[in-house]
């Protein structure tokens, strides 16, 4: 780890002033579950680290105007234990619990989950966010890509590591972002971007901005859940996940949101599956059809065709699970 200057401001404004207009110079510390390892591997070598945990306004979960406001430094454990989340936002709770070690849930934050770097092993070994050799050729495409994207956005083949992202997108959530010229809001689906070159980032924040909170609209009457296909119960990443949010009239789906996780450089909205469900009763058959529609556009790599099936099954199972829930 390269030596760095440590700052622990108490207001968002102070924190923003401490950031840099260039990526790489200053890093933001919340739970530290990702940043510390990035620094130990010299993948991030900031000259300054700005701790957000001392900023009170970034904490807490509040009900607001029918929805939920979740502070960026709320831990995954706090989210999973929150009574409103537990009664109304099953998909968020399931996704948070899927971060499968109590230690990480106790330290890791909601903001950190959204802003963490990918787990792509080529990135983690120093071959850049796109996993390229010196000539710029992708190491992923002809290499070991069993955990990589089946919905790649070339030249990006990694998968977004965010557990909450797909659930938040399905629920229609927004993030609030503070920067030098004030704050702005962004739908969560626009927070995630596929980098076009090795110097770009995978989130739509500027280097001098801070994700301060997540605003989730009311999910009353919205049946929502997250289904993860995971190989291990213990510390592990899901192989794929599907988050769904269904508005229903009787047994008929009036509006469906279906978002896949761990399948692309960003969470992937399965628009075809959403269309396939609209106006239909949710049955084993329509769930199966929706699963197929969700992966119709998949373009797996040499070693991850199996993830197409996993994504299909995840969608199918998430839908069948959601429909059993109280609306």
């Amino acid at each position, binding site marked *: 780890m*390269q030596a760095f200057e440590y700052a622990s401001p108490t207001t968002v404004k102070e924190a923003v002033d401490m950031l840099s207009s260039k990526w790489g110079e200053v890093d933001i510390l919340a739970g530290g579950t990702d940043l510390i390892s990035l620094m130990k591997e010299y993948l991030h070598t900031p000259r300054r680290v700005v701790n957000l945990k001392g900023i009170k306004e970034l904490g807490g979960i509040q009900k607001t105007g029918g929805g939920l406001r979740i502070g960026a430094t709320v831990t995954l454990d706090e989210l999973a234990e929150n009574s409103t989340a537990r009664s109304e936002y099953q998909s968020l709770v399931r996704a948070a619990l899927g971060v499968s070690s109590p230690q990480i849930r106790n330290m890791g934050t909601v903001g950190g989950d959204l802003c963490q770097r990918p787990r792509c092993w080529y990135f983690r070994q120093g071959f850049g966010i796109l996993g390229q050799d010196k000539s710029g050729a992708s190491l992923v495409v002809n290499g070991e890509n069993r955990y990589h994207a089946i919905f790649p956005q070339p030249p990006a083949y990694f998968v977004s590591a965010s557990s909450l992202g797909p659930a938040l997108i399905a629920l229609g959530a927004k993030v609030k972002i503070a920067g030098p010229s004030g704050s702005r809001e962004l739908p969560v689906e626009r927070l995630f971007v596929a980098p076009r070159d090795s110097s770009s980032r995978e989130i739509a924040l500027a280097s001098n901005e801070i994700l301060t909170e997540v605003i989730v609209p009311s999910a009353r009457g919205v049946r929502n859940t997250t289904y993860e296909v*995971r190989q*291990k*119960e213990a510390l592990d990443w899901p192989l794929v996940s599907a988050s769904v949010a269904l508005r229903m009239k009787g047994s008929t789906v009036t509006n469906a949101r279906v978002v896949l996780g761990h399948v692309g450089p960003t969470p992937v909205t399965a628009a075809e599956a959403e269309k396939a469900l609209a106006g239909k009763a949710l049955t084993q058959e329509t769930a199966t059809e929706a699963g197929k529609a969700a992966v119709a556009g998949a373009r797996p790599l040499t070693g991850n065709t199996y993830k197409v099936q*996993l994504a299909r099954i995840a969608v199918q199972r998430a839908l069948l699970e959601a429909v059993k829930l109280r609306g």
Partner: protein
Amino acid sequence: MPNYNWPPMDQRQQMGKRQSRLDGIEKATGRARYSSDLNRPGMLFAVMLTSPYAHARVRSIDTSAAQKLAGVTGIRTIVKAGDEVNWVSQEIAIVAATSEQIARDAVRLIQVDYEVLPHVVKEENLAKAGNRARPAGEQVTGDPDKAFKEADVISEGQYGIPVLTHCCLESHGQVIEWRGDTIYFYPSTQNVSGIGPDLAKNLEVPATQVKVHMDHVGGGFGSKFPSDRWGIECARLSKESGGRPLKLFLDRATELSIAGNRPSAFAKIKVAAKRDGTITGWESTSWATGGMSGGGMPPIPYVMTNIPNRRLNHSAVQTNGGPLRAWRAPNHPQASFLTCAAVEDLAAKLGMDPLEVFAKNVQWAPEARRETYLHQFKKAAELSEWSKRWHRRGDSGPGTVKRGMGVGICTWGGAGHLSNCKATIHPDGSVEIELGSQDLGTGTRTVITQVAAETLGLPLDAIKVKIGDNSYPPSNASGGSTTVGGVSSSTRIATSNALEKLFEKVAPAWNTTADKLEAAGGKIQVKGDSSKSLTWAAASKKMGVQSITEMGQNDPKNPRGLNTQGVCGVQIADVSVDVETGVVKMNRLVAVQDCGLVINPKLAEGQVAGACIMSICGALMEERIMDAATGRVLNPEMEFYKLAGIGDIGEILVHMDIRPEMDSRGVIGLGEPPTIGGIAAIANAVANAIGVRVPVVPLTPDRVLAALEEKRSA
């Protein structure tokens, strides 16, 4: 001469008891100090620079910038210009500094110019190995061609098991201090008595100068015998710094890349059999790698070594990966998997119960073991509810979750190693037992204490056991399941000898001789005459001021019936497979295991349960993943180098095969055997569940789904 024989089974007071490990509380509370916990005054830290390339020639190394960094106290280069490096993370240079952080920064300032050379890091496909594959020459026994021609049925399959690393929780390393003429060496080792001489030889100093101490070791599994390049260089750096203590423990990535691995094994296997399941012929073409040395042929056909007609071909494939080291039952888990998978596939082809086929072919196992296997098959079947749960391959009913059962077997030696023990009885009655041995977490301390207490007729807390220091009488390294037989026998002999001397001091007062006395219940007494009895403390006072110190040796050439070798073991796995996701869940793993006289059934069961967990990891999730293009290990961490957690292991049911006829054989080692059969059992259970063989372990969702897909399209 004292009678060294173990006391009869029904008369033991301490041995055979389900005693919890004596250092359990110390370990559970974190008070136990591992060598990696040591921090000495004025200590320096060392970090190694390692190769980023799998194969390269070093053109030049420039350490000048690193030398100038404040806090750096020494740098040594391990390779020189012109040298070739042959695997990623191979040692290049080492830096000592006043903090680990400075050492890490300094390592990054060392400039190495490499000429990158071509590498090969993968071996799954033998056809692609080219001249890296070195055939060992064909071995033929009997007439395999005739056997296959006359066979009622021929079963063929291809199987593979990848390279694993040892993944010790406490990585390799040491604290070392070369002060004056003396080297104080605090390693993490399986070899307390032997590592000092090894280091001395490498440093070209007399072995008398090396003092070794280690209280606990956080995992070795066969990978922690030598002093290692990093130990040798750290000793030199300590000396060069004027004798300051120096600490280096490998970081996780280096640990998984170069501190040892279990070689892979791949094989195409053909089995000839009669309609009743009797195997008549075996043909295999196998290959393996464990780095630049390739990988040896696992002992196949496993256990059924006397299958009459055999043709074996094997190639060692040289790859640019870190070097292999012994891995808990070297080559046996591979052999068990390859063999048991082939037998299970044969049974499936015949439509037979695999337990019946195994039982039929026990005739090809060494004669002395046949009855034990048959007994253990029966016991394991009973504990796993085999007759209720087993079904024909693939006949697992409707639904997306399929349940299946499978069997795996093991064998091992486990004779006691050369071990010396010193037993001292002091005039105040206190007892010290000293051995230059080590407790790998297996319970060696506890077992030594139980044997000493048994022999001296004392409670456990009356015995002070001292191990982990090379000033104690030497015991061999703990490898190959040799420790328990060695240390229990040497302790038995030493304590018996010391007791004999105490008897000699006490006997005259009762006008009798030493051979008429016994030690029991904390007393020394005349056998059969309770009126002539002294408490242990009162008896010890008869020594005056002179302590009694006696030696005992387990001589492997003459173990006096105290220990022996040769065990069996049967494991049965019960799994559920989600055929839509390919995810395999353990329901239960039953392990039936003998190891002769069991000194502590509770610790023995713990040892077997730990081995079962290793098998579950190896069967379902654990593998070293190499990158063909970069030659890197892609998962040298604990994230994608996947290991099971509590939620992944299901129920583990251990049955120690303790019977009088087993007990009378003497003590036999237990470290290796229970690690062997589990992978085979689990892989066979998955085949049974889903109706098709998944040829290569670990049985990850991608491999399970691929096998199902192949079955569908066949």
